[in-house]
């Protein structure tokens, strides 16, 4: 039994959460540093995972741990990572420190940091209940649960953390709202709790429906394998060996049960409406936590659980899901264009991006799924960059309305510059990381479903539209009076943004480290789903400059016809 690396990676932030929460009220700053330290240690451990992970190795999962937990439910404490999980764990562990840093003052009592907006003094006093410790403890708790749900290879174990992470998120959204509210604290509070409740109920309903499916899965396995099990690997192998035979109907029902929960989390049109509220009302760092970290669990789970547990049903549902994803892409982008609130705009942009991710996953091609995985990582980074800068901007002016800004570029060039880079990443400009993933997704989709692929490319035009409109309205033009005295980015804020941008550039130019660990996992997934990439019509060796003639190969993949 080697050192339980995966458990440790999840345990550190968990302990950190408790430790941070235990810091006495007076020592606010100490709590912050403590939280930061723990998050950094977690990141270090995540890196260790990434290095200990051997891309080419046999078997789907590595660094596995397995202990008995609840025998009666056939539940084991089974952890293991494949390339996809490694990538996402790394992303999570990477983002949290930035989230903490960016939210450094978000949970301070208002008396200390005189919020730039002149929300009624009374409002400030009543709202002075903001236990900083709690804020950072909750963030760490979320991190721990997210990491565990990435590591879990036991469906039930995954489900538990998938559900449990809602609670801390819920308190983060409802308890620590954005201070930029035009209509005073009262209304802000109501909107906040509305958003929080909406977030929780949407995801809880999804989760409960999934619970039914989970129970169903147990019933089926118990019925056919003698002892019910939730071990993903075991189930997959049993299916391969033909020992486990879900009936078509059952499989589809179970698939839908799982997919619904993940689609809510992802979120997929038309289950998306909780996201704009949540991201709009929460503080920018929490918004990042939602869209860049927590939502990824949904798409990740589609890839790991939906496809591998129910290959048949996945194939059956693919057309419908692709259409929904397509709708999300276009719909999200269009709504983003129509938004008047910066953060809601970014939220809708994210909905559009999640459309791309799901599209890639269900295109069932190597490019599509690798692209989708890369997309999860890149979208995490790019949205974090954009949203955090937006948060800095908002905290300066005290308003989320685009109309309240203008000409910021003149007074705060660095802020504007970073904002622009974030925006360009969001519209996936070549040379920045998101381009690679988006193009892979498009190619992957196109190679199987040309029409859908082409429609999806509309997304890149619309993305340009909402990003540039946002930038133009806020950053360019004559300088607004309220903006005139706006300070440029502070050191802390630069420390947050610069690394993210650097990372975006690096992964845009050299995504190899990522693709190398992701590709084998995707290969395994596809082999479970039993899908092969469509063959190109003409076979030519892709050696650069190798201008040799190829031989025509007939289209072998029937899907390509669709």
């Amino acid at each position, binding site marked *: 039994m080697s050192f339980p690396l995966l458990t440790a990676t999840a345990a550190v932030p968990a302990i950190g959460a408790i430790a941070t929460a235990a810091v006495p009220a007076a020592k606010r700053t100490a709590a912050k540093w403590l939280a930061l330290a723990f998050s950094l240690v977690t990141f270090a451990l995540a890196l260790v995972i990434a290095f200990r992970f051997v891309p080419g190795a046999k078997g789907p999962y590595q660094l596995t741990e397995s202990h008995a*937990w609840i025998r009666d439910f056939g539940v084991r404490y089974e952890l293991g990572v494949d390339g996809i999980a490694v990538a996402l764990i790394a992303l999570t562990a990477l983002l949290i420190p930035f989230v903490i840093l960016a939210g450094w003052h978000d949970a301070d009592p208002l008396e200390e940091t005189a919020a730039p907006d002149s929300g009624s003094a009374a409002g400030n006093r*009543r709202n002075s209940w903001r236990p900083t410790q709690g804020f950072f403890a909750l963030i760490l708790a979320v991190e721990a649960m997210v990491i565990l749900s990435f590591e879990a290879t036991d469906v039930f174990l995954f489900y538990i*953390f998938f559900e449990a992470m*809602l609670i801390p998120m819920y308190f983060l959204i409802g*308890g620590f709202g954005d201070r930029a509210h035009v209509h005073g604290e009262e209304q802000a509070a109501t909107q906040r*709790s509305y958003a929080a409740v909406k977030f*929780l109920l949407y995801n809880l309903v999804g989760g409960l429906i999934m619970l039914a499916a989970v129970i*169903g899965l147990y*019933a089926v396995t118990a019925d056919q394998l003698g002892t019910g099990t939730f071990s993903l690997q075991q189930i997959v192998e049993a299916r391969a060996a033909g020992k486990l035979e879900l009936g078509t109907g059952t499989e589809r029902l179970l698939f839908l049960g799982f997919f619904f929960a993940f689609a809510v989390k992802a979120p997929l049109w038309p289950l998306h409406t909780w996201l704009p509220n949540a991201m709009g009302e929460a503080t920018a760092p929490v918004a990042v936590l939602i869209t860049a970290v927590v939502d990824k669990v949904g798409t990740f789970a589609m890839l790991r659980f939906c496809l591998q547990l129910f290959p048949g049903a996945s194939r059956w549902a693919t057309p419908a899901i692709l259409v929904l994803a397509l709708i999300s892409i276009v719909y999200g982008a269009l709504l983003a264009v129509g938004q008047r609130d910066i953060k809601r705009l970014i939220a809708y942009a994210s909905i559009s991006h999640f459309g791309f991710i799901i599209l890639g996953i269900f295109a069932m091609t190597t490019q599509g799924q690798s692209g989708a995985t890369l997309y999860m990582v890149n979208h995490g980074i790019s949205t974090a960059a954009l949203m955090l800068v937006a948060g800095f901007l908002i905290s300066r002016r005290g308003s989320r309305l685009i109309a309240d800004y203008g000409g910021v570029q003149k007074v705060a060039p660095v802020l504007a510059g970073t904002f622009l880079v974030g925006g360009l990443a969001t519209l996936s400009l070549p040379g920045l990381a998101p381009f690679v993933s988006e193009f892979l997704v498009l190619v992957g989709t196109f190679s199987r479903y040309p029409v859908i692929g082409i429609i999806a490319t509309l997304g890149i035009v619309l993305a340009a539209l909402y990003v540039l409109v946002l930038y133009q309205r806020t950053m360019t033009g004559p300088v607004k009076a309220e903006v005139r005295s706006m300070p440029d980015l502070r050191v802390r804020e630069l420390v947050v943004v610069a690394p993210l941008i650097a990372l975006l550039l690096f992964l845009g130019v050299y995504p190899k480290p990522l693709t190398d660990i992701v590709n084998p996992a995707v290969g395994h997934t596809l082999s479970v789903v039993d899908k092969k990439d469509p063959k190109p019509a003409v076979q030519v060796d892709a050696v650069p400059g190798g201008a040799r003639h190829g031989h025509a190969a007939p289209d072998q993949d029937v899907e390509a016809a669709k």
Partner: protein
Amino acid sequence: MSSVASVHSLWTVAAEVPGRIPAPHIEYAQLSPTLIVLGAAVIGILVETVLPRSSRYYAQLALSVVALAAAFAAVIGLAAGGFGSSKARIAAMGAIAVDGPALFLQGTILLVSLVAVFTFAERRLDPAAHGKKVDSFAAQAAAVPGGAAEQAAVKAGFTTTEVFPIALFAIGGMLIFPSANDLLMLFVALEVFSLPLYILCALARRQRLLSQEAAVKYFLLGAFSSAFLLFGIALLYGYAGTVTYAGIAEVVSDGAKQIDPALAGTMGNDALLLIGAALVLMGLLFKVGAVPFHMWTPDVYQGAPTPVTGFMAAATKVAAFGALLRLLYVVLPGMRWDWRPVMWGVAIVTMLGGAIVAITQTDIKRLLAYSSIAHAGFILAGVIATSEDGISSVLFYLGAYSFVTLGAFAVVTLVRDAGGEATHLSKWAGLGRRSPLVAAVFAVFLLAFAGIPLTSGFAGKFAVFKAAAQSGAGWLVVIGVISSAIAAFFYIRVIVLMFFSEPKADGPTVAVPSPLTTTAIAIGVAVTLVLGLAPQYFLDLAGQAGVFIR
């Protein structure tokens, strides 16, 4: 009237003077838990009569705690002695079964009661009257509220220490209820634990009108339902010619062929069986608080003194479900195909009804009452499974649920304003900001009710639904899931209220309880989390206890 003659012959036969009646043979050891508790109750009455007022409180408290602890020890001893499994047997001339479920439930009831007694004995929450510490029971129940007699009683610092022996009697009844092995015992046990509860309900110190009203309602409806139960028993007796579970089960399963044709009209008449079974079921469902026999629950829960409410909500449910299980699994398995669909229906309406009505409640105690109804529905889903898994999952759920409930009501006793407990939800606004700890604890209980993972509620719900699904009740599970989604809504509403809404200026204060209530709450939280994180051991216990003797 062809059969008159034969009937007459029967009459003469029956009229013969029976020979010497054999003295009953009682296994005292195996009945010790019950006997200890009832004995303690009797002693308690003596204490009331003998000891001076001043020392009664402590005497009673000590007595009941010791008794319950001893009884629990006895249960453990029996279980360790293998009476739960291998040596399980019918005791007391077939009146009482000592087997796994019985012992498990008795153990649960005793533990719950022990914790409940702590909350009974709490004397720090209410402001001291005339320098004398008072608990949450009326100074003198007989005195007219607000009347001179009451004033005097309060001035004299009277406290109703009788609640302890009364509660002990109730507990005794509850111990017998799930282990009763014939219908007569069932009925007697029912009354034995109901009557004391009626009285306890009437003993609130504050808002005595509500308290008395609750008692009246509970009493009348309780008596009404027990009348139905009794009539059902009569019919079953008529059907089978006996009231022992085993006997009836036998007749039910092999249709009573060897019966004298003269009695074909009654004996083995399915109408008798079905109607009787239905009426008996109704009597038990009433105690369980299942729709449509739940009407008493909200009113009584609201009116009764909160410690009593907690005790009732937790212990009564355990006992009643125990009896229900035994009835369905021991007496009526033969007619499973008749009662299962009916219970399906009951479970569904109970789950949905409880959840839906709870949405618009404005009083925390009523809210919890409706939530308890919804939970009764969930447990019924497990009862319907008719499998060993079903039994053990129900046992586990009961254990988990009872402690959550107890804890929740214990917290309710802490939130007070001038008029005693502040149970109106609007008063709870911003509680999380006034006293985060209490709010957090209550949130934990609510999340457990809602069945969020890592709490006992989730483990229980999963176990029950799993059993149901495996017995082919998949759609019941789906409906259960939906209704728990609905239920989640109002639990969350309370959390929102406590944490995310501005505290009212005239909001309630959170009283600092004595170690008694603190321990009660602490135990509640502990059990909730332990059963949520590492339920395996307890699932094993329930699993081993999952076999009825017949």
